[in-house]
Each structure stands twice: as structure tokens, then as C-alpha cells.
């Protein structure tokens, strides 16, 4: 399963058994798909069996718009210190070097979820001072921005990367390094971040999954497509 689906499956099987998953393609699930192999996308046919609802994207987005979504997952090509994401263009939007897929449901999720978790591979050229194009707004220009532009919902709470975990500060609204994964350090995280990153006073190594959690993750990704 892709990482958000996998994360949801893990949560439903551990600390959040009542969690409901809403998928952009129109599916609502209370439990992970029963698999005989790898789920690559939310629209793979096995994801429908056992679903609580199979409907339209518009209906799922309607629930999002009503404030019904507690947690949204998104990722991007570029992220900045305030959790704004770019999935539209690399380079000048009027003449881009690379044209990316665009928002999909990302902008809706970023604007309307009560809380957002960003999942991204980390590299310095992708973690930029200011994204070249604001496809999915996080905390915008900083404190007060979401309120000024009229966005409900809390915006990004956490940024989880291949190197560490950042949490968005309640006051300053910027990403603060909370932990570095095993094998990394504050120095490697600084080197991989394209802005002068603040570090939490209690920064530490990210706790590794328990054996039980790891077994669940492996069961969801038997062919190791999304995990190592």
C-alpha cells in the first residue's frame, strides 16, 4: 500500500481502531483491504470489498468541506518552512522546467482538513525557503495567514520525511525538527533542509517501530514496494 494507506491500516490495527479512511476516489473504509498481494493505488479493485461506502469524489470532498475530516495526508515535490507544498511546477510557472501533476485533492485536503500530516522524501533541493508555486497551502506566510485568508482547519501539524520528523510550532507556524531517524543526526538534517531549520530543545532519535508494528507494516507491503 502507498504510505498514507499503509499508515491508516497500521493506525486502524493499533491505536485508532475506530478511524475511518476517506479516499479521494470515493471510498470509505473502516478496516484495511483484505489483500492477496500488493495494493498499489486506492482504486485497485480489492480496495472496494468491505468498503462502507463507494461513492463519488464530490461526496468525499463534501464531507471534507463540512469539516468532517480530522486528519489529511499529503505530499509534494517541494515543501517550505511553513508547510506550503508545490506539486505544480519546478521553475518559473510561466515557463517551467518541469510540469508536475498538479493539485489533485491536495489543495482541498490542505485547506479543509482539521489537521494535516505531510509525508515526503527529504532532499535539500526539495525543502526550500519558499516554494516556487503554492499548490497546497500550509501556514502560508506564517502566523495569522490562514485566519487572514479565511482557511478553516489547523493546517500542517507534522512533516514526516525519509530523514526525520518536524512539528509545526503553534506560535511561529514553522517546521521545527523534533527527531532524526536512526542513522541521521541534527547535522545531516540541517544539511538536507534548504532553510535555516529550528531544532526542538528535546530533539532526539525517532523511536523505531515495535516488532508488532513492523509485522503489520510488512503484511501491508509484502513485496516491499513502498517500504524497506
Amino acid at each position, binding site marked *: 500500500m502507498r504510505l498514507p494507506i499503509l499508515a491508516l491500516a497500521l493506525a486502524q490495527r493499533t491505536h485508532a481502531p475506530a478511524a475511518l479512511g476517506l479516499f479521494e476516489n470515493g471510498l470509505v473504509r473502516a478496516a484495511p483491504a483484505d489483500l*492477496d498481494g500488493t495494493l498499489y493505488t486506492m*482504486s485497485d*479493485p480489492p*480496495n472496494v470489498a468491505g468498503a462502507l461506502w*463507494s461513492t463519488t*469524489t*464530490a461526496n468525499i470532498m463534501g464531507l471534507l468541506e463540512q469539516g468532517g475530516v480530522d486528519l489529511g495526508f499529503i505530499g509534494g515535490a517541494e515543501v517550505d518552512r511553513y508547510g506550503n507544498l508545490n506539486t505544480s511546477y519546478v521553475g518559473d510557472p510561466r515557463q517551467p522546467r518541469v510540469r508536475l501533476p498538479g493539485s489533485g485533492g491536495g489543495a482541498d485536503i490542505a485547506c479543509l482538513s482539521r489537521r494535516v500530516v505531510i509525508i515526503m522524501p527529504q532532499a535539500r533541493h526539495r525543502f526550500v525557503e519558499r516554494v516556487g508555486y503554492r499548490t497546497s497551502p500550509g501556514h502560508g506566510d506564517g502566523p495569522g495567514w490562514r485566519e487572514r485568508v479565511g482557511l478553516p482547519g489547523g493546517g500542517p501539524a507534522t512533516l514526516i520525511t525519509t530523514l526525520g520528523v518536524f512539528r509545526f510550532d503553534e506560535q511561529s507556524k514553522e517546521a521545527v525538527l523534533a527527531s532524526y531517524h536512526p542513522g541521521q543526526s541534527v547535522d545531516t538534517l540541517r544539511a538536507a533542509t534548504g532553510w535555516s531549520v529550528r531544532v526542538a530543545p528535546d530533539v532526539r532519535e525517532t523511536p523505531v517501530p515495535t516488532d508488532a508494528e513492523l509485522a503489520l507494516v510488512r503484511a501491508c507491503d509484502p513485496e516491499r514496494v513502498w517500504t524497506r
Partner: protein
Amino acid sequence: MTIVHVQRADALGHCHAWGPLGVTREAALAARRVLVVAEEIWPTGRILADPNLVLLPAFKVAAVVHEPWGAFPSPLQGCYGRDHASFAQYHAESGTPAGFRAWLDRWVLAPRDWPGLLGVLGPERLAGLRPRRRLPSEPLDYGA
């Protein structure tokens, strides 16, 4: 015009679609004319026996095309899964203009028609996409 692929349709444009619908219905309704591509053609009486499952009003349908495997490499609920290899291959080969051109020539322009493409893919590859188990729903009674 919007083009949609559905599991079954009659010759008049009444069609059934099920599974995660995404934007299928809205895309069809937003267009003035719709091209319906169907995995199977069914008699009108059997389609209209379940009017709730009908995707859109037939007066918007300009044509119905019977084309099995027409959604390939995307999935179609109850019929076939997603062909992940096709997407991975496109991603790998289309990174440059020359690579994209070669991909286009081989997979889009060279096959004579859709059955021609299916012939290139081969029966084993297609058979591997079929559902591993049947999951029928309960029949409905619209009795009045």
C-alpha cells in the same frame, strides 16, 4: 465531450457503472455529449431493471462502443485489476521527448486497433489481471 468506460451498456446509451466512481458521473454530466465505451453490451430490459445503477441519462450519450478491456491499463471493478507494469514502464520511458515518442509509437500508433494492442500484450498478461474471486451484490426488487 466526455468519454467513459463502463462495465455494461445497452445499444441505446443506458449504462451501468460501479466501483469507486471518482469523477466519472460528474465528468459525464458536465458534457453535452458522452461517448460510452462498454465492457459488455446487455439488453435494454436488463439494464433498466436497475435504474439507480444507471450512470447518466441516455439522451446525453452520442454513441456506445463495445470494447472489452477498454479501460486497460486502469482497473475496472469486477472485470480486471490495474496493470501496474504499464504505468511503471510509461514512467520509466517517458522522461525524455525521444523516450516518450518511442513509447507513443510502440503502444499507441503502431497497434492497428484495440484488439491489436491486446494481442501485443498477450493472453497471459491479461489473464493475470482478472479478479481472483467473485463478489456479487444482492439483487434488488423494484417491485411496485
